[in-house]
């Protein structure tokens, strides 16, 4: 069951950034109480890459939304550096499942939005900063295009740049690479890890794909159908996890073993009936 005080090597060494204590979220659905998230304890360390997996309807996205501050927990508390989270803030940049690009702005102008909201007013300064991140996500050639002209993968990249440019301490990613073709997905995986290593932010990443979870994470939190965190699994695979290093025979063995371990946990969690009180 929930191992909130998981003393793994990483979180032991690094400072705790976010802590969840007994976080529960109950929705009212046609007169019944539906527990989406149930008694979650979790500590997320600074500069950690945490991936949350679980079957559909296990409350992964709800948990992320609460950390982002879009929804308050029904009970329990979420603290960021000791302070209770009361609402959305620029320190927690969220990337949504659907892309939220503004259709009347070009990619460049969309990325500049975050800077405008921060009060950066110099045209040249804005453009320079925005182009930095547009280059980083590999969209330089499409900076002048409008969202309607972009493919799904390009929209993801643009959304990523839009949030990254505001330099959030914490990146909350809700299935950001769902519904992308596998080649684009692989590229973006490598890119997000590169950005994370470069910007030293903390990432909480929600997905239902286990390959993705094993490839990206420092730790994997598995949620079950009752909205509980059933287990937190350390991912000690060496980085980088692509290219030449990933071809080592030992690496492949460890990768698959870890994926099977996570898969088992998810299977157990999916077998449980959703809890209705």
């Amino acid at each position, binding site marked *: 069951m929930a191992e909130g005080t998981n003393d793994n090597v990483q979180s032991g060494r690094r400072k705790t950034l976010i802590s969840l204590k007994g976080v529960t979220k109950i929705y009212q659905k046609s007169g019944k109480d539906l527990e989406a998230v149930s008694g979650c304890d979790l500590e997320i360390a600074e500069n950690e890459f945490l991936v949350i997996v679980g079957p559909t309807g296990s409350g992964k996205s709800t948990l992320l939304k609460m950390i*982002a501050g*879009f929804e308050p927990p029904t009970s329990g508390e979420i603290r960021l550096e000791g302070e209770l989270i009361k*609402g*959305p*803030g*620029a*320190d*927690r*940049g*969220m990337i*949504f499942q*659907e892309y*939220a690009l*503004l*259709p*009347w702005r070009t990619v460049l102008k969309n990325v500049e*939005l*975050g800077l*405008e*909201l*921060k009060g950066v007013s110099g045209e040249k300064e804005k453009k320079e900063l925005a182009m930095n991140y547009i280059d980083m996500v590999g969209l330089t050639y499409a900076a002048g295009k409008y969202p*309607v002209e972009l493919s799904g993968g390009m929209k993801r990249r643009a959304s990523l740049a*839009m*949030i990254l440019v*505001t330099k959030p301490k914490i990146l*909350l990613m809700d299935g950001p690479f769902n519904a992308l073709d596998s080649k684009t997905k692989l590229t973006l995986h490598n890119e997000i890890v590169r950005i994370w290593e470069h910007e030293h932010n903390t990432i909480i990443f929600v997905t239902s794909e286990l390959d993705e979870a094993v490839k990206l994470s420092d730790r994997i939190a598995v949620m079950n159908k009752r909205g509980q965190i059933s287990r937190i699994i350390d991912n000690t695979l060496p980085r980088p996890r692509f290219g030449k290093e990933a071809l080592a025979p030992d690496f492949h063995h460890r990768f698959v073993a870890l994926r099977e371990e996570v898969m088992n946990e998810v299977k157990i969690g999916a077998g449980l009936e959703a809890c209705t009180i």
Partner: protein
Amino acid sequence: MAYDSSNCIACRSQRINKFMNMGSKEDNKQSGSGVIVDFIKGRGFYLLGILLFLAAWQIACSLKGFGDFSEAFSPLSAALALLEMARNGDILHHAIPSLRRVLVSLSLAIVFALPTGVLVGYFRQLEQITYVPFQFMRMISPLAWMPIAIIIFGVGDVSVTFLLWLVAIWPLILNTVHGAGRVSPLWLNMAKTMGAKDMGILSKIIIPAAIPDMLTGLRLAVGVSWIILVPAEMLGVPDGLGYFILDTRDRFRYDQLMATIFIIGAIGYLLDSANRWLISKFAWKI
């Protein structure tokens, strides 16, 4: 996205333009000399419509369809009267005050209606508070307010401007409310996760998102203002196209009356074209 592109005038006119351009591109590929044929192919039916309209008008007059004075109503007599009015300055003398009144009242309507619409659209409670009064008020012809306008503002320009303002604000307000109210919650959440506060959300998300609807509102407002202008100018102003209609009637100059009607139609068409241009230029599309 929640937007139905077929409801968007900008999209429709874009589609028409695309359709017309498509034809010409294909023809250009076939031969370089097809430019004139092309022009007629693209616009032929528009020209045909104008010609049919004039022909029907002329025939109805020649057949004495409007009684004994039918000759004076014909497009030919009107065209001659138009020339005469252009020479003696009647056109400018009456068209300019009319345009001035419409533009002044429209500007005042925009200044009042757009901020109102944005606020009402953004704050749900405000929309509920204003819903019944707004829907009630907009169904009343501004001409019904005429006696009250004259009591308050007296006979003259101010009353006319007030009546035009009163008719122009409703399409502007209601369309802006619609535009500001249907902003995708996704955009709002994204702005919030970037740390945006109310002012930032209003200026960077809500207002730009509502611009297509504001322009649609403007187009409707210009249309009704121009229509209400003529009766409004019959209320004791010394110039303007509405005034001139009554004046030509009193002088039995039915050819000039028809010419004035033509001018009213032509200026209305140009105003609407200007609006369509604004929409195609500034309304974003999905």
